[in-house]
Protein backbone atom coordinates (compact mmCIF):
# COMPACT_ATOMS: atom_id res chain seq x y z
CA UNK A 1 0.00 0.00 0.00
CA UNK A 2 1.30 3.39 -1.01
CA UNK A 3 2.20 5.88 1.72
CA UNK A 4 -0.19 8.21 0.01
CA UNK A 5 -3.14 5.83 0.17
CA UNK A 6 -6.28 7.63 1.33
CA UNK A 7 -4.61 11.04 1.65
CA UNK A 8 -6.89 13.94 0.88
CA UNK A 9 -5.18 16.08 -1.76
CA UNK A 10 -6.25 19.45 -3.13
CA UNK A 11 -5.07 19.73 -6.74
CA UNK A 12 -5.06 23.22 -8.23
CA UNK A 13 -4.32 23.22 -11.96
CA UNK A 14 -5.90 25.55 -14.51
CA UNK A 15 -5.50 23.67 -17.79
CA UNK A 16 -8.20 21.07 -18.38
CA UNK A 17 -6.05 18.46 -20.08
CA UNK A 18 -3.14 18.87 -17.69
CA UNK A 19 -5.51 18.72 -14.71
CA UNK A 20 -6.87 15.39 -15.98
CA UNK A 21 -3.36 13.93 -16.12
CA UNK A 22 -2.36 15.16 -12.66
CA UNK A 23 -5.64 13.99 -11.15
CA UNK A 24 -5.20 10.52 -12.66
CA UNK A 25 -1.67 10.30 -11.25
CA UNK A 26 -2.82 11.25 -7.77
CA UNK A 27 -5.70 8.78 -7.99
CA UNK A 28 -3.23 6.08 -9.11
CA UNK A 29 -1.17 6.91 -6.01
CA UNK A 30 -4.22 6.18 -3.90
CA UNK A 31 -5.10 9.80 -3.06
CA UNK A 32 -8.58 11.15 -2.56
CA UNK A 33 -8.40 14.12 -4.95
CA UNK A 34 -10.31 17.40 -5.04
CA UNK A 35 -9.66 19.39 -8.20
CA UNK A 36 -9.93 23.18 -8.48
CA UNK A 37 -9.10 25.01 -11.68
CA UNK A 38 -9.80 28.61 -10.69
CA UNK A 39 -8.32 30.78 -7.99
CA UNK A 40 -11.67 31.63 -6.35
CA UNK A 41 -12.77 27.98 -6.19
CA UNK A 42 -9.37 26.83 -4.95
CA UNK A 43 -9.38 29.49 -2.21
CA UNK A 44 -12.82 28.33 -1.08
CA UNK A 45 -11.59 24.71 -0.89
CA UNK A 46 -8.41 25.74 0.92
CA UNK A 47 -10.40 27.71 3.50
CA UNK A 48 -13.27 25.29 4.06
CA UNK A 49 -12.09 21.83 3.06
CA UNK A 50 -9.87 19.50 5.01
CA UNK A 51 -6.78 18.24 3.27
CA UNK A 52 -3.58 16.40 4.10
CA UNK A 53 -1.71 17.80 1.13
CA UNK A 54 -2.05 20.23 -1.75
CA UNK A 55 -0.46 20.54 -5.20
CA UNK A 56 -0.55 24.11 -6.49
CA UNK A 57 0.10 25.03 -10.10
CA UNK A 58 1.79 28.44 -9.77
CA UNK A 59 0.28 30.02 -12.88
CA UNK A 60 -3.51 30.06 -13.00
CA UNK A 61 -4.10 31.91 -16.24
CA UNK A 62 -3.31 35.52 -15.48
CA UNK A 63 -3.23 34.85 -11.75
CA UNK A 64 -0.84 33.18 -9.34
CA UNK A 65 -1.69 30.62 -6.70
CA UNK A 66 0.12 32.42 -3.83
CA UNK A 67 -3.09 33.50 -2.06
CA UNK A 68 -3.96 29.77 -1.77
CA UNK A 69 -0.48 29.06 -0.42
CA UNK A 70 -1.02 31.73 2.25
CA UNK A 71 -4.28 30.10 3.37
CA UNK A 72 -2.57 26.71 3.50
CA UNK A 73 0.30 28.14 5.59
CA UNK A 74 -2.28 29.54 7.98
CA UNK A 75 -4.18 26.29 8.24
CA UNK A 76 -1.02 24.20 8.51
CA UNK A 77 -1.68 22.18 5.38
CA UNK A 78 1.48 20.88 3.73
CA UNK A 79 1.77 21.62 0.02
CA UNK A 80 4.05 21.83 -2.98
CA UNK A 81 4.14 23.96 -6.09
CA UNK A 82 4.02 22.71 -9.66
CA UNK A 83 5.54 24.84 -12.39
CA UNK A 84 7.30 24.51 -15.69
CA UNK A 85 9.93 26.99 -14.50
CA UNK A 86 11.28 25.25 -11.39
CA UNK A 87 12.34 27.39 -8.44
CA UNK A 88 13.06 30.30 -10.76
CA UNK A 89 9.32 30.56 -11.36
CA UNK A 90 8.60 31.19 -7.68
CA UNK A 91 8.33 34.49 -5.87
CA UNK A 92 11.10 34.99 -3.32
CA UNK A 93 8.83 34.52 -0.29
CA UNK A 94 7.93 30.99 -1.40
CA UNK A 95 11.35 29.71 -2.48
CA UNK A 96 11.60 27.20 0.36
CA UNK A 97 8.49 25.32 -0.76
CA UNK A 98 9.23 22.11 -2.69
CA UNK A 99 8.52 22.22 -6.40
CA UNK A 100 7.50 19.59 -8.91
CA UNK A 101 8.81 20.40 -12.33
CA UNK A 102 6.19 20.16 -15.06
CA UNK A 103 5.42 18.13 -17.10
CA UNK A 104 4.09 15.94 -14.28
CA UNK A 105 5.71 12.54 -13.76
CA UNK A 106 4.29 9.90 -11.48
CA UNK A 107 7.53 9.00 -9.67
CA UNK A 108 8.52 12.62 -9.10
CA UNK A 109 5.05 13.47 -7.84
CA UNK A 110 5.13 10.49 -5.48
CA UNK A 111 8.64 11.21 -4.13
CA UNK A 112 7.98 14.84 -3.40
CA UNK A 113 4.51 14.27 -1.94
CA UNK A 114 5.89 11.66 0.46
CA UNK A 115 8.74 14.00 1.36
CA UNK A 116 6.37 16.92 1.99
CA UNK A 117 4.14 14.70 4.10
CA UNK A 118 6.87 13.19 6.26
CA UNK A 119 9.41 16.02 6.59
CA UNK A 120 9.79 17.24 10.18
CA UNK A 121 10.53 20.78 9.09
CA UNK A 122 7.61 22.99 8.18
CA UNK A 123 8.38 25.58 5.51
CA UNK A 124 7.48 29.16 6.39
CA UNK A 125 6.64 32.09 4.19
CA UNK A 126 9.43 34.66 3.75
CA UNK A 127 12.02 32.20 5.07
CA UNK A 128 15.60 32.87 3.90
CA UNK A 129 16.48 30.88 0.78
CA UNK A 130 18.87 28.62 2.71
CA UNK A 131 16.23 27.87 5.36
CA UNK A 132 14.60 25.23 3.16
CA UNK A 133 14.20 21.83 4.66
CA UNK A 134 17.37 19.91 5.28
CA UNK A 135 16.09 16.72 3.70
CA UNK A 136 16.31 18.20 0.24
CA UNK A 137 19.15 15.84 -0.81
CA UNK A 138 16.68 13.00 -0.36
CA UNK A 139 14.62 14.37 -3.20
CA UNK A 140 14.83 13.26 -6.81
CA UNK A 141 17.81 14.22 -8.94
CA UNK A 142 16.11 16.84 -11.07
CA UNK A 143 14.77 18.65 -8.03
CA UNK A 144 18.05 18.56 -6.14
CA UNK A 145 19.77 20.05 -9.16
CA UNK A 146 17.39 22.98 -9.14
CA UNK A 147 17.53 23.44 -5.41
CA UNK A 148 21.30 23.72 -5.56
CA UNK A 149 21.01 26.28 -8.32
CA UNK A 150 19.34 28.62 -5.87
CA UNK A 151 21.23 27.79 -2.71
Amino acid sequence: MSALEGRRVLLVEDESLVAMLAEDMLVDLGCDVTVAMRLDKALAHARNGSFDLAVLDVNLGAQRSYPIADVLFERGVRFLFATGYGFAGLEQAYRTIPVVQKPYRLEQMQDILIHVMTCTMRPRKDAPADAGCGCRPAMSGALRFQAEGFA
Partner: protein
Amino acid sequence: MPSSRQSVQSTAEASAPLASLRRSGQLFETERRLNAVLNNASVSIFLMDDRQHCVYMNRAAEKLTGFTLDEVLARDCPLHDVVHHTYPDGRPFPLQDCAIDRAFPENNQERGEEVFVHKSGHFYPVGFTASPIRDDTAKIIGTIIEVRDISEEKAAAERQRLLINELNHRVKNTLATVQSIAAQTFRGKTDAAVRRVFDERMLALSDAHNVLVADNWESASLWSVVERALAPHASAEVDSDRFKLSGPDARLHPKIAVTLSMALHELMTNASKYGALSVPEGRVAVAWSVRHEDAGSGQLELHWQERGGPVVVAPVRTGFGSRLIERQLPMEFDGSAEIVYEPAGVACRLQIPLTELGWHGQETATLQGAP
Protein backbone atom coordinates in the same frame (compact mmCIF):
# COMPACT_ATOMS: atom_id res chain seq x y z
CA MET B 1 11.76 123.32 -4.51
CA PRO B 2 11.56 122.74 -8.17
CA SER B 3 12.96 119.34 -8.02
CA SER B 4 10.43 118.03 -5.56
CA ARG B 5 7.61 119.73 -7.47
CA GLN B 6 8.92 118.40 -10.66
CA SER B 7 8.91 114.95 -9.32
CA VAL B 8 5.33 115.39 -8.15
CA GLN B 9 4.33 116.88 -11.48
CA SER B 10 6.10 114.28 -13.43
CA THR B 11 4.45 111.42 -11.61
CA ALA B 12 2.17 110.63 -14.53
CA GLU B 13 4.95 110.74 -17.11
CA ALA B 14 7.42 108.95 -14.86
CA SER B 15 5.01 106.11 -14.17
CA ALA B 16 4.90 105.16 -17.85
CA PRO B 17 8.55 104.13 -18.17
CA LEU B 18 8.30 102.57 -14.70
CA ALA B 19 5.36 100.39 -15.79
CA SER B 20 7.14 99.44 -18.98
CA LEU B 21 10.20 98.65 -16.92
CA ARG B 22 8.05 96.49 -14.66
CA ARG B 23 6.49 94.85 -17.71
CA SER B 24 9.90 94.13 -19.19
CA GLY B 25 10.88 92.71 -15.83
CA GLN B 26 7.81 90.48 -15.96
CA LEU B 27 8.61 89.58 -19.55
CA PHE B 28 12.12 88.67 -18.58
CA GLU B 29 10.79 86.50 -15.77
CA THR B 30 8.25 84.86 -18.11
CA GLU B 31 10.94 84.18 -20.69
CA ARG B 32 13.22 82.74 -18.04
CA ARG B 33 10.49 80.41 -16.90
CA LEU B 34 9.56 79.37 -20.43
CA ASN B 35 13.17 78.61 -21.23
CA ALA B 36 13.44 76.56 -18.06
CA VAL B 37 10.36 74.59 -19.10
CA LEU B 38 11.42 74.15 -22.72
CA ASN B 39 15.03 73.26 -22.01
CA ASN B 40 14.17 70.75 -19.34
CA ALA B 41 11.47 69.06 -21.43
CA SER B 42 12.46 65.60 -22.65
CA VAL B 43 10.41 66.02 -25.83
CA SER B 44 12.03 67.95 -28.68
CA ILE B 45 10.21 71.15 -29.62
CA PHE B 46 10.67 73.12 -32.82
CA LEU B 47 9.03 76.39 -33.74
CA MET B 48 8.71 77.00 -37.47
CA ASP B 49 7.89 80.19 -39.31
CA ASP B 50 5.61 80.56 -42.32
CA ARG B 51 8.46 79.51 -44.63
CA GLN B 52 8.94 76.22 -42.69
CA HIS B 53 12.24 77.56 -41.36
CA CYS B 54 13.06 76.64 -37.80
CA VAL B 55 13.28 79.78 -35.64
CA TYR B 56 13.52 78.04 -32.28
CA MET B 57 14.44 74.63 -30.97
CA ASN B 58 14.82 73.51 -27.35
CA ARG B 59 17.77 71.68 -25.86
CA ALA B 60 16.19 68.23 -26.38
CA ALA B 61 15.77 69.09 -30.07
CA GLU B 62 19.44 70.04 -30.35
CA LYS B 63 20.40 66.76 -28.73
CA LEU B 64 18.03 64.76 -30.91
CA THR B 65 19.12 66.23 -34.24
CA GLY B 66 22.79 66.83 -33.47
CA PHE B 67 22.44 70.45 -34.68
CA THR B 68 22.52 73.58 -32.52
CA LEU B 69 19.87 76.25 -33.07
CA ASP B 70 22.60 78.57 -34.43
CA GLU B 71 23.66 75.98 -37.00
CA VAL B 72 20.06 75.50 -38.11
CA LEU B 73 19.47 79.26 -38.33
CA ALA B 74 22.69 79.67 -40.33
CA ARG B 75 21.52 77.08 -42.90
CA ASP B 76 18.62 79.48 -43.74
CA CYS B 77 16.47 76.75 -45.25
CA PRO B 78 13.35 74.74 -44.26
CA LEU B 79 13.98 72.49 -41.25
CA HIS B 80 12.94 69.54 -43.41
CA ASP B 81 16.07 70.03 -45.52
CA VAL B 82 18.21 69.86 -42.38
CA VAL B 83 16.80 66.84 -40.52
CA HIS B 84 14.45 65.02 -42.91
CA HIS B 85 15.95 65.35 -46.39
CA THR B 86 16.56 61.68 -47.24
CA TYR B 87 14.55 58.45 -47.01
CA PRO B 88 16.28 55.56 -45.21
CA ASP B 89 16.69 53.87 -48.61
CA GLY B 90 18.74 56.84 -49.82
CA ARG B 91 16.16 58.54 -52.06
CA PRO B 92 15.82 62.28 -51.55
CA PHE B 93 12.73 63.29 -49.53
CA PRO B 94 11.16 66.44 -51.04
CA LEU B 95 9.56 68.96 -48.66
CA GLN B 96 6.17 68.81 -50.38
CA ASP B 97 5.84 65.07 -49.56
CA CYS B 98 6.43 65.63 -45.85
CA ALA B 99 3.48 65.02 -43.51
CA ILE B 100 5.03 67.13 -40.76
CA ASP B 101 5.15 70.24 -42.91
CA ARG B 102 1.60 69.63 -44.04
CA ALA B 103 0.31 70.85 -40.65
CA PHE B 104 0.91 74.39 -41.82
CA PRO B 105 -0.47 74.35 -45.36
CA GLU B 106 -3.41 72.09 -44.47
CA ASN B 107 -4.32 73.97 -41.34
CA ASN B 108 -4.72 71.12 -38.86
CA GLN B 109 -2.77 69.06 -36.40
CA GLU B 110 -0.71 66.25 -37.93
CA ARG B 111 0.57 63.25 -35.99
CA GLY B 112 2.60 60.33 -37.17
CA GLU B 113 5.90 58.59 -37.38
CA GLU B 114 8.82 59.49 -39.61
CA VAL B 115 12.48 58.71 -39.91
CA PHE B 116 14.88 61.63 -39.42
CA VAL B 117 18.53 61.96 -40.41
CA HIS B 118 20.98 62.86 -37.64
CA LYS B 119 23.77 65.40 -38.21
CA SER B 120 26.18 62.45 -38.18
CA GLY B 121 24.22 60.83 -41.02
CA HIS B 122 22.43 58.00 -39.21
CA PHE B 123 18.66 57.51 -39.39
CA TYR B 124 16.39 57.37 -36.35
CA PRO B 125 12.62 56.82 -36.04
CA VAL B 126 10.55 59.58 -34.45
CA GLY B 127 6.96 60.19 -33.45
CA PHE B 128 5.76 63.74 -34.12
CA THR B 129 2.86 66.07 -33.52
CA ALA B 130 2.74 69.21 -35.69
CA SER B 131 0.24 71.94 -34.78
CA PRO B 132 -0.35 75.24 -36.58
CA ILE B 133 -0.03 78.45 -34.55
CA ARG B 134 -2.11 81.53 -35.27
CA ASP B 135 -1.88 85.25 -34.75
CA ASP B 136 -4.61 87.42 -33.15
CA THR B 137 -6.61 87.34 -36.39
CA ALA B 138 -6.48 83.54 -36.52
CA LYS B 139 -4.09 83.66 -39.44
CA ILE B 140 -1.61 80.80 -39.41
CA ILE B 141 1.88 82.12 -38.92
CA GLY B 142 3.87 79.02 -38.18
CA THR B 143 4.00 75.50 -36.82
CA ILE B 144 5.04 74.01 -33.52
CA ILE B 145 6.47 70.50 -33.82
CA GLU B 146 6.95 68.07 -30.95
CA VAL B 147 9.21 65.12 -31.71
CA ARG B 148 10.14 62.00 -29.73
CA ASP B 149 12.83 59.47 -30.53
CA ILE B 150 10.98 56.13 -30.76
CA SER B 151 13.98 53.87 -31.44
CA GLU B 152 13.41 51.97 -28.17
CA GLU B 153 9.71 51.42 -28.87
CA LYS B 154 10.47 50.25 -32.41
CA ALA B 155 13.13 47.85 -31.14
CA ALA B 156 10.75 46.52 -28.45
CA ALA B 157 7.99 45.98 -31.03
CA GLU B 158 10.45 44.17 -33.27
CA ARG B 159 11.62 41.95 -30.40
CA GLN B 160 7.98 41.17 -29.61
CA ARG B 161 7.31 40.26 -33.25
CA LEU B 162 10.31 37.94 -33.30
CA LEU B 163 9.23 36.34 -30.03
CA ILE B 164 5.71 35.72 -31.28
CA ASN B 165 7.08 34.17 -34.48
CA GLU B 166 9.34 31.99 -32.38
CA LEU B 167 6.42 31.05 -30.11
CA ASN B 168 4.26 30.07 -33.10
CA HIS B 169 7.08 28.04 -34.53
CA ARG B 170 7.94 26.33 -31.23
CA VAL B 171 4.34 25.41 -30.40
CA LYS B 172 3.71 23.91 -33.82
CA ASN B 173 7.03 22.13 -33.77
CA THR B 174 6.51 20.75 -30.27
CA LEU B 175 3.10 19.35 -31.18
CA ALA B 176 4.56 17.77 -34.32
CA THR B 177 7.42 16.37 -32.24
CA VAL B 178 5.04 14.82 -29.71
CA GLN B 179 3.15 13.24 -32.58
CA SER B 180 6.35 11.81 -34.00
CA ILE B 181 7.50 10.47 -30.62
CA ALA B 182 4.12 8.80 -30.18
CA ALA B 183 4.36 7.31 -33.67
CA GLN B 184 7.86 5.92 -33.01
CA THR B 185 7.03 4.70 -29.52
CA PHE B 186 3.78 2.93 -30.31
CA ARG B 187 4.66 1.61 -33.77
CA GLY B 188 3.43 -1.96 -33.95
CA LYS B 189 2.60 -1.98 -30.23
CA THR B 190 -0.72 -0.19 -30.28
CA ASP B 191 -3.97 -0.76 -32.07
CA ALA B 192 -3.99 1.39 -35.23
CA ALA B 193 -7.43 2.71 -34.29
CA VAL B 194 -6.11 3.99 -30.95
CA ARG B 195 -3.23 5.67 -32.75
CA ARG B 196 -5.67 7.37 -35.09
CA VAL B 197 -7.66 8.73 -32.16
CA PHE B 198 -4.45 10.12 -30.69
CA ASP B 199 -3.34 11.68 -33.99
CA GLU B 200 -6.71 13.31 -34.49
CA ARG B 201 -6.62 14.81 -31.00
CA MET B 202 -3.14 16.18 -31.63
CA LEU B 203 -4.39 17.65 -34.88
CA ALA B 204 -7.36 19.26 -33.13
CA LEU B 205 -5.00 20.78 -30.56
CA SER B 206 -2.71 22.01 -33.32
CA ASP B 207 -5.67 23.52 -35.23
CA ALA B 208 -6.83 25.31 -32.10
CA HIS B 209 -3.41 26.90 -31.86
CA ASN B 210 -3.53 27.95 -35.52
CA VAL B 211 -6.58 30.07 -34.68
CA LEU B 212 -4.60 31.75 -31.90
CA VAL B 213 -1.58 32.39 -34.08
CA ALA B 214 -3.80 34.39 -36.44
CA ASP B 215 -4.30 36.98 -33.70
CA ASN B 216 -0.96 37.11 -31.91
CA TRP B 217 -2.24 34.87 -29.09
CA GLU B 218 -4.49 37.61 -27.79
CA SER B 219 -7.82 36.12 -28.75
CA ALA B 220 -9.51 33.83 -31.26
CA SER B 221 -12.59 34.17 -33.39
CA LEU B 222 -15.46 31.96 -32.19
CA TRP B 223 -16.51 31.28 -35.77
CA SER B 224 -12.99 30.14 -36.71
CA VAL B 225 -12.85 27.88 -33.67
CA VAL B 226 -16.14 26.17 -34.60
CA GLU B 227 -15.30 25.94 -38.30
CA ARG B 228 -11.81 24.58 -37.70
CA ALA B 229 -13.04 22.02 -35.19
CA LEU B 230 -15.60 20.69 -37.68
CA ALA B 231 -13.40 21.05 -40.78
CA PRO B 232 -11.76 17.59 -40.72
CA HIS B 233 -15.19 16.04 -41.17
CA ALA B 234 -16.89 18.77 -43.17
CA SER B 235 -14.26 18.79 -45.92
CA ALA B 236 -14.70 15.07 -46.53
CA GLU B 237 -18.42 15.51 -46.99
CA VAL B 238 -20.07 15.94 -50.36
CA ASP B 239 -23.30 17.03 -48.76
CA SER B 240 -22.75 20.52 -47.44
CA ASP B 241 -26.09 20.49 -45.62
CA ARG B 242 -24.76 18.06 -43.06
CA PHE B 243 -23.67 20.86 -40.76
CA LYS B 244 -25.77 23.82 -39.85
CA LEU B 245 -23.85 26.51 -38.00
CA SER B 246 -25.56 29.60 -36.68
CA GLY B 247 -24.45 32.27 -34.28
CA PRO B 248 -22.58 35.54 -34.06
CA ASP B 249 -18.83 35.82 -34.08
CA ALA B 250 -17.12 36.79 -30.83
CA ARG B 251 -13.59 37.06 -29.51
CA LEU B 252 -12.55 34.21 -27.25
CA HIS B 253 -9.84 34.14 -24.62
CA PRO B 254 -7.04 31.77 -25.76
CA LYS B 255 -7.77 29.28 -22.96
CA ILE B 256 -11.44 29.10 -23.91
CA ALA B 257 -10.51 28.74 -27.59
CA VAL B 258 -8.29 25.72 -26.93
CA THR B 259 -10.62 23.87 -24.56
CA LEU B 260 -13.70 24.59 -26.70
CA SER B 261 -11.85 23.32 -29.79
CA MET B 262 -11.01 20.10 -27.99
CA ALA B 263 -14.59 19.73 -26.73
CA LEU B 264 -16.03 20.20 -30.24
CA HIS B 265 -13.51 17.73 -31.59
CA GLU B 266 -14.68 15.10 -29.11
CA LEU B 267 -18.34 15.72 -30.00
CA MET B 268 -17.44 15.41 -33.69
CA THR B 269 -15.52 12.20 -33.17
CA ASN B 270 -18.35 10.68 -31.21
CA ALA B 271 -20.85 11.76 -33.87
CA SER B 272 -18.86 10.19 -36.67
CA LYS B 273 -18.27 6.95 -34.79
CA TYR B 274 -21.66 6.33 -33.24
CA GLY B 275 -23.90 9.34 -33.91
CA ALA B 276 -25.47 11.33 -36.73
CA LEU B 277 -22.28 11.50 -38.80
CA SER B 278 -21.98 7.71 -38.89
CA VAL B 279 -24.79 7.53 -41.47
CA PRO B 280 -25.16 9.52 -44.72
CA GLU B 281 -28.47 11.15 -43.80
CA GLY B 282 -27.41 12.36 -40.34
CA ARG B 283 -27.24 16.07 -39.54
CA VAL B 284 -25.51 18.20 -36.94
CA ALA B 285 -26.68 21.66 -35.93
CA VAL B 286 -24.40 23.91 -33.91
CA ALA B 287 -26.16 27.05 -32.72
CA TRP B 288 -24.84 29.61 -30.31
CA SER B 289 -25.57 32.99 -28.85
CA VAL B 290 -23.50 35.51 -26.96
CA ARG B 291 -25.15 37.60 -24.29
CA HIS B 292 -23.04 40.65 -23.62
CA GLU B 293 -22.84 41.87 -20.08
CA ASP B 294 -20.58 44.69 -18.92
CA ALA B 295 -17.46 45.72 -20.82
CA GLY B 296 -15.44 42.79 -22.07
CA SER B 297 -17.50 40.04 -20.49
CA GLY B 298 -20.50 38.03 -21.57
CA GLN B 299 -21.99 34.59 -21.67
CA LEU B 300 -21.62 32.10 -24.50
CA GLU B 301 -24.36 29.51 -24.90
CA LEU B 302 -23.63 26.81 -27.42
CA HIS B 303 -25.98 24.03 -28.42
CA TRP B 304 -24.91 20.94 -30.34
CA GLN B 305 -27.74 18.86 -31.72
CA GLU B 306 -27.53 15.67 -33.77
CA ARG B 307 -30.44 14.39 -35.88
CA GLY B 308 -31.00 11.54 -38.33
CA GLY B 309 -28.45 9.15 -36.88
CA PRO B 310 -28.97 5.71 -35.40
CA VAL B 311 -31.01 5.47 -32.21
CA VAL B 312 -28.76 6.74 -29.44
CA VAL B 313 -27.77 4.53 -26.55
CA ALA B 314 -26.10 6.26 -23.60
CA PRO B 315 -22.54 4.99 -23.09
CA VAL B 316 -21.94 2.84 -20.00
CA ARG B 317 -18.49 4.25 -19.36
CA THR B 318 -17.35 7.87 -19.06
CA GLY B 319 -14.76 8.46 -21.76
CA PHE B 320 -12.22 11.19 -22.35
CA GLY B 321 -14.67 13.33 -24.32
CA SER B 322 -17.44 13.44 -21.76
CA ARG B 323 -14.95 13.92 -18.92
CA LEU B 324 -13.41 16.88 -20.74
CA ILE B 325 -16.75 18.42 -21.62
CA GLU B 326 -18.91 17.75 -18.59
CA ARG B 327 -16.31 17.93 -15.84
CA GLN B 328 -13.23 19.92 -16.88
CA LEU B 329 -14.80 22.59 -19.03
CA PRO B 330 -17.23 23.86 -16.35
CA MET B 331 -14.44 23.82 -13.75
CA GLU B 332 -11.98 25.65 -15.97
CA PHE B 333 -14.35 28.47 -16.90
CA ASP B 334 -16.93 28.47 -14.13
CA GLY B 335 -19.59 27.51 -16.65
CA SER B 336 -21.81 24.52 -17.19
CA ALA B 337 -21.97 21.65 -19.65
CA GLU B 338 -24.36 18.80 -20.21
CA ILE B 339 -24.46 16.00 -22.76
CA VAL B 340 -27.87 14.42 -23.24
CA TYR B 341 -28.11 11.06 -24.99
CA GLU B 342 -31.60 11.52 -26.43
CA PRO B 343 -32.69 8.57 -28.62
CA ALA B 344 -33.21 10.95 -31.58
CA GLY B 345 -29.70 12.33 -31.37
CA VAL B 346 -26.97 13.43 -28.98
CA ALA B 347 -27.36 16.96 -27.66
CA CYS B 348 -24.81 19.05 -25.80
CA ARG B 349 -25.40 22.38 -24.15
CA LEU B 350 -22.47 24.52 -23.04
CA GLN B 351 -22.52 27.73 -21.05
CA ILE B 352 -19.21 29.54 -20.85
CA PRO B 353 -18.68 32.96 -19.28
CA LEU B 354 -16.57 35.02 -21.66
CA THR B 355 -13.92 36.83 -19.69
CA GLU B 356 -11.87 39.83 -20.63
CA LEU B 357 -9.45 39.30 -23.47
CA GLY B 358 -5.72 39.67 -23.44
CA TRP B 359 -3.03 38.49 -21.12
CA HIS B 360 -4.24 40.30 -18.06
CA GLY B 361 -6.89 38.32 -16.31
CA GLN B 362 -10.25 38.98 -14.90
CA GLU B 363 -10.18 38.78 -11.13
CA THR B 364 -6.58 39.56 -10.26
CA ALA B 365 -7.20 42.89 -8.55
CA THR B 366 -10.25 41.95 -6.52
CA LEU B 367 -9.15 38.51 -5.40
CA GLN B 368 -5.56 39.25 -4.56
CA GLY B 369 -6.69 42.17 -2.46
CA ALA B 370 -9.18 40.00 -0.57
CA PRO B 371 -8.32 39.07 3.02
